[in-house]
């Protein structure tokens, strides 16, 4: 039975969504695009293997390369989310600093 793109992307995105929780809306378009590309490539590998155009060993290497590439995408998304969180925390500290300094009347923070 042939695999469909949605058979792969649906569960992949469902698994990723809770991990990126608060940042999901920001990263969703990128995650969706990359998941779709990953699924299409897996389907192409399956097709080439079925048609005898690549050996099982070659197919295994291709799958490993695609997986690794997709992991890099997820790692980058996680990293960008961490930078976003860092920016938000520092912005919050900045606001508190301004409020406290104003209340005290001299730059405490």
């Amino acid at each position, binding site marked *: 039975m042939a695999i469909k793109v949605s058979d792969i992307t649906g569960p992949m995105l469902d698994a990723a969504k809770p991990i990126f929780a608060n940042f999901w809306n920001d990263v969703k378009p*990128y995650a969706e695009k*990359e998941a779709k*590309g*990953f699924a299409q*490539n897996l389907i*192409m*590998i399956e097709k*080439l293997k079925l048609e005898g*155009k*690549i*050996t099982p*060993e*070659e197919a295994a*290497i*291709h799958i*490993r*390369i*695609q997986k*690794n*590439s*997709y*992991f*890099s*995408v997820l*790692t*980058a*998304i*996680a*990293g*960008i989310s*961490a*930078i976003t*969180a*860092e*920016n938000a*925390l*520092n912005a919050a*500290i900045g606001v508190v*600093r301004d409020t406290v300094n104003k209340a005290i009347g001299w*730059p*405490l*923070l």
Partner: protein
Amino acid sequence: MYFIYRNRYVVSLLLGLSLMLSSCKVTLVSAYDAVSEQMVTDMQQITSTFFVKVESDPSSSDVAYKNCKKMYEDLKVKAATLRIRNMEIDKNKFMSTMAVQLESNIKDLEALHKIKQNGLLSLDDVTLLKSAFENQYGAIFKFLMASKARDK
């Protein structure tokens, strides 16, 4: 006398607290590293040039494995250097993870090329490889751009 000492203590405490809090900045991810970006750019150019060559003439002896060993050596040295450098930077797990993944894919690219019967990658191989590597390099660049923008 006690009053003077107590006041000195309070002033020192306030100064210390002020100094500590004024430098209070949350850092979850290491600073942007221009050297890493240059290394990834170099690797991306080598890989892309190779894929373009295969696409232009897949049966050319120039793109046969035996004539690409120098390119793989160069890529593997760059990948190892990128990994080692990034492993040594504090709070850098995202970039060091991506460097490990990239090094692994460079090795697998060579392994695939090496086992090809005639030492030549097919156009189908290149379609898959190009997509994987472009996405992988793209992800690394996206992350580096985000840390660069944060550090401005």
